[in-house]
């Protein structure tokens, strides 16, 4: 590393390697284990909901199940169908996973060094167009699914790909609008800045401009579930209709990549929701002195931020899993109805109302 730095010079080294290494560390140390244990948690929670035990054979309480699963998927035969379009078939899973992981670069899962007075920055980078970056990258994931569905040369895959194209594009619109509302409230696009604004104003944006913050949050939540193809909006991979939807023909690690992508997306969407609406890494009611014991000042401030962030994140992830245990699946046309007839107009109205409020009353 030191040699590389000498060769490239500090500036080039910084731009070329530093973010990449940080992302790699966050993804491999933080996100991948989180995903694999999220899968385990999902199976355990679903098991609890469905009066069964869930995985309990590998290790105590099935704790090593994710490792066994990953091993299995890694050594499985990788089949590429004869008439598949090979390059697209290979590219598709990468397109789903890559962007989902890169989004973690802008998510502040803890306070910055400046805010805690030295120490670590608990985020990879603080882009001043953070929200835009998130939306832009999240959109790329759709291509992976469409390409995967199309290139498999299977009718079920094709239908799944078509469904996801329509679904994700229509739900990106209300999602985008609902993301603009916190921007209006905060006056910045940087995710770290939005958390800072919530700290400053002393309230989560969920409760700001009541009830518009709440409405925006609900729209974001619904659109987010649809974006990540989870129940009750899991139409692209609807098992009972399309066998497995866009990943019908995928096996082994390629299938696992789609799987990883779905869960990474779940985490990303939850993380963005936490950051934008639930005060990010800040404790509840950050301005109320009486609750300052929640800051747990005997711990490093950054760590406490990370803890609060993870707590809020896990609530979201639990809600996702809870949905899956409770709801039937929407039909394709009903999904479009919900998106275009309800969510988009509602998000526009909310956006307009918040804007008006901001201009007239503040």
């Amino acid at each position, binding site marked *: 590393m030191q040699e590389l730095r000498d060769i490239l010079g500090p500036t080039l080294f910084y731009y070329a390697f530093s973010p990449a290494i940080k992302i790699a560390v966050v993804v491999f140390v933080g996100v991948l284990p989180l995903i694999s244990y999220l899968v385990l948690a999902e199976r355990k929670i*679903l098991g609890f*909901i*469905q*009066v*069964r035990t869930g995985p309990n054979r590998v290790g105590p309480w099935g704790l090593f199940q994710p490792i066994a699963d990953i091993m299995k998927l890694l050594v499985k035969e990788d089949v590429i169908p004869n008439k598949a379009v090979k390059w697209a078939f290979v590219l598709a899973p990468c397109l789903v996973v890559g962007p989902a992981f890169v989004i973690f670069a802008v998510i502040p899962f803890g306070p910055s060094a400046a805010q805690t007075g030295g120490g670590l920055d608990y985020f990879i980078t603080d882009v001043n167009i953070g929200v835009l970056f998130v939306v832009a990258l999240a959109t790329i994931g759709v291509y992976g699914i469409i390409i995967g569905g199309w290139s498999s040369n299977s*009718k*079920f895959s094709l*239908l799944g790909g*078509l*469904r996801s194209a329509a679904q994700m594009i229509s739900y990106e619109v209300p999602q985008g609008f609902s993301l603009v509302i916190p921007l209006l409230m905060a006056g910045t696009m940087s995710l770290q800045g939005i958390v800072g604004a919530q700290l400053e104003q002393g309230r989560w944006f969920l409760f700001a401009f009541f009830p518009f913050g709440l409405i925006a949050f609900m729209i974001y939540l619904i659109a987010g579930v649809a974006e990540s193809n989870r*129940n*009750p909006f*899991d*139409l692209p991979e*609807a*098992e*009972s*209709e*399309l*066998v497995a939807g866009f990943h019908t023909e995928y096996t082994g690690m390629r299938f696992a990549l789609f799987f990883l992508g779905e869960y990474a997306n779940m985490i990303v969407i939850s993380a963005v929701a936490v950051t934008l609406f639930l005060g990010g890494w800040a404790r509840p009611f950050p301005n109320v002195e009486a609750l300052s014991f929640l800051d747990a000042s005997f711990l490093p401030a950054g760590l406490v931020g990370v803890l609060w962030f993870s707590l809020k994140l896990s609530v979201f992830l639990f809600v996702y899993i809870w949905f*899956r*245990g*409770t*709801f*039937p*699946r*929407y*039909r*394709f*046309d*009903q999904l479009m109805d919900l998106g275009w007839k309800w969510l988009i107009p509602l998000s526009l109205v909310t956006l307009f109302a918040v804007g008006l409020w901001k201009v007239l009353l503040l």
Partner: protein
Amino acid sequence: MEWADFTAGRTGDLHGRAIREMTNTTNTRRDTLFDVEEMELNFGPQHPSTHGVLRLKLKVDGERIVDCYPIIGYLHRGTEKLFELHPFFQNVPHTDRLDYVAAATNNLAYVGAVEKLIGLVVPPRARYIRTILCELQRISSHLLWLATHAIDIGAMTPFFYCFREREIILDLFEEYCGARLTLNCMRPGGQPFDLPVGWGERCAEFLDDFPSKIDEYEGLLTNNRIWKKRTVGVGVLPADLAQEYGVTGPMLRASGVQWDIRKAMPYEAYGDVEFDIPVTYNGDTYDRYLVRMEEMRQSVRIVEQCLDKLPDGLIMAKSPRVLKAPKQSDAYFSIEGPKGEIGFYLVGDGTPNPHRCRVRAPSFMNLQVVPILAKDQLLADMVAVLGTTDIVLGEVDR
């Protein structure tokens, strides 16, 4: 058949209006800008929601089903021919394998036909035991239907709840006759076994508990907005069409036809017990769901009454060791199975074997309307329609 007429004549209640709206939106053919070609989609025989080995050749225009053509025969085992090769007694196990999730009712339809053919009079205790077994079987069959139907529509959890209760029923069966699915639990002339000691109490315990479990399933589904959106107005089966196609069972009653053989031509102990036949009038998937849920409740009532009234006495009629049908005799006996009217037509020729056996399988008849119900619906509705017809391929193909 004008579907629009059928829905337009409906009173303006919310349910009817929802049906009208939905049939309107899905029935209109869109004008297309470009030439479109329909895609042929092979739905099954290896598909998660064809419930066995049904194959449907679908013509789809995007997600909309233009044409549906069921292809059966992947589970054909020549059961009707097999009946001719064995004596009357030995044919009972074959009937288990027709509708393999409702063996007791198949048994009853067959042994009933044999008894009618030969003229055996079944002792009352055996008749009550048969009724109890059949109604438990109806519950377990409906539970399996609900489980798979719900999972087809995407609700995962009811599946496990239903299997939890079905397990108890299967345990009861196992205790009675040693088998859980292929029961072989009836004989021409009576019952092979009496109820085991304590069986009635264990059964009553289950029956006490079960209605609350039905509430649990209904809590998850009945008023669930998504469930209603997926089922209300989907696969509307008008009453006259249902009758033309010989549709029976809950499918017919959900279309508003009050026909249940248990009431119309009471057999076994059904004349002695009080129960209601649920009927609904919209004929859509949601109504069929409601009918079956209520039928489970009524089955609980029937079994409870049968257990209370269970008479003492013989369980087997005095019958010759080898049953021989009279020469040139025939008999048709049908009962109300969980899926509809299941009947056996037997021809005797003076030998211990039936000369010919014909099974009137409700699944087979009910399957005939699937292409009509699925036409112009979306692909997702295909699954709902297939689930709501509650077919078992063992019975369709025989």
